[in-house]
């Protein structure tokens, strides 16, 4: 190198001393660095050696939350497998779970906090620091609390089980309104189990393996399938897989001799593996169940083994059967105005369900005689109808009287038997605090929980919050009608939505948009909307603040989805948090600190950062109550411990007898389960399974500790009369206030029924005379189904967009060169990049229609049509003409079309030719007891476009 051109050696100090030419450079370099630091060669060498590790954690690509094991190479997640130790999925993993890395590393995920700078819906935001975002939020929360009370704030924590940190914070802040997705999922479906058992969901006993105590005292993984019959009504576990083990378990049960019957208007994935598919008319599940029950009652014969349907032993652990039976029978002599036949007869049901009478008789007989069996009803079939409660109640009754509840191979209420979790970390103590409000000039005191807008407002027996009716309350405000704060009025001023997307899934889409964009003058009526998530979905477009939540591989929590017995597993940190995302715990602590700094009187260091200095501390608190269920059943999980005592502690400490027994409180206390314990045990704690857990009260959560066929009854204790039963509390409130909730007033009720009841669903011309006149103009009933691998949030995982499913998600795209659209200066704007998608290669949500119906309308597969309801609501999409759905019924994927968030990637580009089911949902009615949106009570006409 020649001296004249050789780059000069110069030190940084010398460089800064350069003359005029270098002065500006010096200015830059004195202020700005390169951002790199040297490391030792040993450090570099270590880091360069390929570093591979595996972490056990829990999936969140769908609410099934399977146990997974993630391979991490050099700090980057590179592959996802099933965790063989978690019995629900035992090493299995679906396409969606395996594609999770595309969600975590998706370019569209929210990376930074944002504050809105345009109007709501325009999608104009500014990136801000966490501090700015939290300032913005805390200022408004404090203002609203001062002006309207903390009850004006809602925290909706969406569809994942790890919501506890948010609930804890907002309950501490003083609002009773903490909720989650379950409130808009399938509430009528859960109503029967809640009334009878204090439970939630009845599922077949097919989770395998289950850990079972053997006669010799050892524990063994039991893989035996004892089920003889499973009837799935409106339940499609092969795609609606919150109860994920049913996919495999159903097939295994069938291979072991079980008969599988699927009752569904559509040939679902589950139906394809069934022995029988019964394409029932939409919205008539209760009719079918009622006819089955009547048939069983009329044809039961104790002396004939071929007619011995009823197992009378249920009377030992139940109460109120006679009253239930009497009320049920009282309908037998009434005549149905729509078909002139006596209620619940085979002929009556045949007319309504469009299932031949002899087929119904055969079904009832088969269910009565084949034991063990499970009758299971589902989300789409029963949870989405105005009168879904009745099918749910009858379904429970059928399982109970036939002796199928809690027997090996029978039916299990999973809510009653899963491990407890949360404990103090749920923050429930906070809402027991006493507060004062001025109502009609009078100062009134009560508990925070008594300010709840549903339970003390229009929906006292909702149990789950009535999210589907939020838009009305956003627009009109809340009036409490029951309890100490009766007549208290308040507006909803702040709405936090985390891992949810109610604009698309929470009832009528336009109604949600109307509520979120309503203004009083220049101010939005709901003054603060905060969207917290990893993907950016439609509801985020209406948010004032967007907070990036760490993806499921970057955060910690617990999972325990609907097992047959107690088990719990850990969601663990797999990779470092990306960008500026924070975990739920981080957000809880950061917002709590901000509120505290700004003087919120309810947020105290001793409840937050002093009590839970690390994330692990918080989840250890949540684990302290595990497993927390009554020690009961056959075989007894731990023969050395007393029956019906509550078990607390790790499986190994209980096994080893490292316990203290409190006879007064009836608790067997072992060593607490902790995050560390879970890590050391493959990420999962499993306690032994047993059956017959209703005996002597067992796991039942009713006041009588029996299965209750009556829901408002009197008992006398110590000379005092007391009302009990699941409806008693609400009826007492109604009686005290002298006011009937408007939704049950529509039914002609004054209060909630004591036992069996019957009413018709809405928008059904075959069962409700009011709608018969509309049938000619609106000849189709519309239902929805789930596209498992492309649900609301995960449609941004492009690979999954290529997999067709269930005739609902099909490669019906036209040939398009798409101008990729991003959120621009004035809303969605072309980015300049073009993507060519050849015809027929991209799956979109479609309208499933029977071929014969299509032919009558002159339609061909792939034609674009418009659907319209009698209320004038419309959506459009392409028809998929198939034989897999009964004539007169259309099925749409819920959340599968009409998606207008550019954050979804290519799905967004076909929003004009894919249908949004919730464009059609009736916003003016909700199911009358729990306020569920009427997703499946829809009549439409079809127009070719």
């Amino acid at each position, binding site marked *: 190198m*020649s001296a004249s051109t050789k780059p000069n050696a110069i030190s940084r100090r010398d460089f800064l001393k350069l003359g005029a030419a270098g002065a500006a450079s010096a200015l830059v370099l004195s202020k700005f660095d390169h951002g790199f630091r040297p490391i030792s060669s040993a450090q570099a060498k270590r880091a360069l050696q390929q570093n591979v590790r595996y972490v056990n954690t829990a999936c969140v690509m769908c609410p099934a939350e399977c146990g997974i094991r993630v391979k991490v190479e050099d700090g980057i997640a590179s592959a996802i497998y099933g965790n063989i130790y978690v019995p629900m999925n035992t090493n299995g993993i679906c396409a969606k779970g395996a594609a999770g890395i595309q969600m975590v590393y998706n370019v569209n995920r929210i990376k930074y906090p944002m504050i809105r700078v345009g109007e709501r819906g325009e999608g104009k935001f500014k990136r801000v620091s966490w501090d700015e975002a939290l300032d913005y939020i805390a200022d408004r929360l404090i203002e609203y609390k001062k002006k309207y009370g903390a009850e004006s704030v809602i925290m909706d924590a969406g569809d994942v089980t790890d919501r506890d940190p948010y609930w804890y914070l907002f309950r501490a802040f003083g609002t009773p309104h903490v909720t989650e997705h379950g409130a808009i999922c399938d509430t009528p479906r859960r109503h029967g189990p809640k009334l009878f058992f204090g439970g939630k969901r009845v599922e077949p006993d097919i989770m395998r393996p289950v850990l079972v105590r053997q006669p010799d005292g050892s524990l063994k993984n039991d893989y035996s399938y004892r089920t003889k019959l499973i009837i799935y009504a409106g339940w499609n576990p092969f795609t609606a897989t919150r109860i994920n083990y049913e996919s495999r378990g159903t097939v295994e049960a069938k291979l072991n001799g079980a008969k599988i019957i699927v009752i569904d208007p559509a040939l679902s994935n589950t139906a394809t593996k069934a022995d029988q598919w019964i394409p029932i008319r939409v919205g008539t599940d209760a009719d079918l169940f009622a006819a089955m029950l009547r048939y069983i009652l009329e044809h039961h014969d104790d002396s004939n083994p071929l007619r011995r349907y009823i197992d009378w032993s249920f009377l030992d652990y139940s109460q109120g059967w006679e009253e239930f039976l009497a009320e049920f029978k009282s309908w037998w002599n009434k005549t149905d105005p729509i078909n002139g036949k006596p209620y619940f007869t085979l002929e009556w049901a045949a007319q309504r369900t469009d299932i031949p009478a002899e087929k119904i008789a055969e079904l009832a007989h088969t269910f009565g005689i084949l034991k063990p069996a499970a009758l299971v009803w589902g989300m789409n079939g029963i949870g989405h109808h105005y009168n879904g409660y009745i099918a749910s109640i009858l379904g429970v009754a059928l399982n109970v009287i036939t002796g199928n509840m809690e027997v090996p191979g029978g039916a299990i209420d999973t809510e009653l038997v899963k491990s407890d979790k949360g404990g103090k970390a749920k923050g429930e103590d906070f809402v027991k605090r006493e507060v004062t409000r001025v109502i009609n000039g009078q100062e009134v005191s009560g508990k925070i929980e008594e300010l709840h807008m549903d339970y003390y407002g229009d929906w006292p027996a909702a149990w789950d919050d009535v999210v589907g009716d939020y838009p009305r309350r956003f627009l009109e405000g809340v009036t409490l009608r029951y309890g100490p704060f009766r007549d208290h009025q308040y507006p909803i001023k702040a709405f936090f939505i985390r891992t949810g997307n109610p604009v698309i899934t929470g009832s009528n889409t336009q109604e949600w948009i109307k509520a979120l964009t309503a203004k009083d003058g220049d101010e939005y009526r709901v003054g603060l909307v905060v969207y917290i998530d990893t993907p950016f979905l439609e509801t985020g477009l209406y948010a004032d603040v967007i907070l990036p939540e760490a993806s499921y591989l970057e955060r910690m929590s617990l999972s325990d989805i609907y097992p047959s017995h107690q088990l719990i597993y850990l969601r663990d940190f797999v990779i470092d948090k990306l960008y500026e995302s924070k975990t739920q715990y981080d957000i809880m602590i950061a917002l709590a600190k901000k509120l505290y700094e700004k003087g919120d009187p309810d947020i105290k260091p001793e409840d937050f950062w002093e009590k839970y200095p690390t994330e692990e501390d918080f989840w250890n608190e949540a684990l302290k109550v595990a497993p927390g269920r009554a020690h009961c059943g056959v075989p007894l999980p731990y023969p050395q411990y007393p029956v019906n005592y509550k078990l607390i502690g790790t499986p190994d400490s209980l096994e080893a007898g490292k316990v203290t027994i409190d006879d007064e409180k009836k608790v067997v206390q072992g060593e607490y389960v902790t995050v560390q314990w879970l890590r050391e045990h493959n990420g999962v704690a499993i306690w032994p399974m047993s059956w017959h857990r209703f005996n002597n009260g067992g796991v039942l959560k009713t006041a009588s500790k029996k299965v209750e066929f009556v829901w408002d009854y009197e008992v006398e204790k110590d000379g005092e009369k007391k009302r009990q039963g699941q409806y008693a509390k609400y009826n007492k409130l109604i009686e005290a206030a002298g006011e009937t909730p408007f939704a049950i007033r529509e039914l002609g009720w004054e209060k909630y029924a004591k036992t069996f009841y019957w009413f018709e669903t809405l928008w059904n011309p075959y069962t409700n005379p009011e709608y018969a006149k509309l049938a000619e103009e609106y000849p189709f009933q519309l239902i929805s189904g789930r596209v498992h691998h492309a649900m609301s949030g995960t449609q941004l995982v492009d690979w999954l967009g290529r997999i067709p499913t269930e005739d609902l998600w099909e490669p019906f795209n036209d040939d398009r060169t798409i101008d990729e659209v991003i959120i621009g200066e004035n809303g969605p704007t072309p980015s300049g990049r073009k993507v060519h998608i050849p015809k027929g290669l991209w799956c979109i949500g479609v309208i499933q229609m029977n071929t014969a119906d299509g032919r009558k309308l002159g339609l061909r597969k792939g034609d674009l049509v418009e659907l319209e309801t009698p209320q004038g609501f419309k959506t459009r999409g392409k028809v998929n003409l198939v034989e897999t759905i009964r004539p007169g019924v259309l099925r749409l994927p819920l959340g599968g079309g009409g998606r207008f968030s550019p954050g979804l990637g290519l799905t967004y580009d076909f929003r004009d030719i894919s249908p949004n089911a919730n464009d059609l949902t009736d916003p003016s009615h909700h199911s009358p007891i729990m306020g569920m949106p009427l997703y499946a009570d829809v009549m439409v006409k079809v127009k070719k476009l």
Partner: protein
Amino acid sequence: MSQRDYLETRLTIYALLRQLFQYPIGTEALIAARELSLPETHPLYREWKNLQSSIPADINPDWEEQLRIEMTRLLEGPGRTPAPPYASFYLDGMRLMGYPARRAQQTYLEYGVLPEASGLPADHLATELGFLAYLAEQGLTLESDPKPFQVSLAFLQEQVQPWVTSFCVALENAAQEAFFIRLAQFTRAYLEEDATWLQTVLANEYTH
């Protein structure tokens, strides 16, 4: 322009570009960009002047706010942005943290450095520019050692240039603020120019 001047200017430009692609762009970075004058002999004198002309003489808070909003839309999110500033997006099927991120990290480690914790992936443009700034500084401080220049050239050619052109075109097409259009134009041109300069220097000066 002397070789030394060129080297110090090179370091300055990389350090400054790193700042300009990192949210939020601070007032000081904008002032520095406005004030830094390149000699007329610099090959990118005109592009630099163009960029400078998009920065107002009076950098007021309103303009800075507009700049932040625009940068949010262009680069930060939420949802799909017009010009994601990550190599993986362009080189690995539009997902992030793909092989380009791992390769960049490996390159840093092989050189015995690591980016300071910023939450940015290893293949974010600002991180890659930071590494080039570090190497530029090394070029100034290490006498007669061609390694910083060799690593710079290889990094530029193999890891930065394969995607940065697409990124800059996307940014230029989508930007509505002149500042980002000019920034994209300058960045693209500068990286090309620097690669050419490195090739020349390494061919002429360090071959024996």
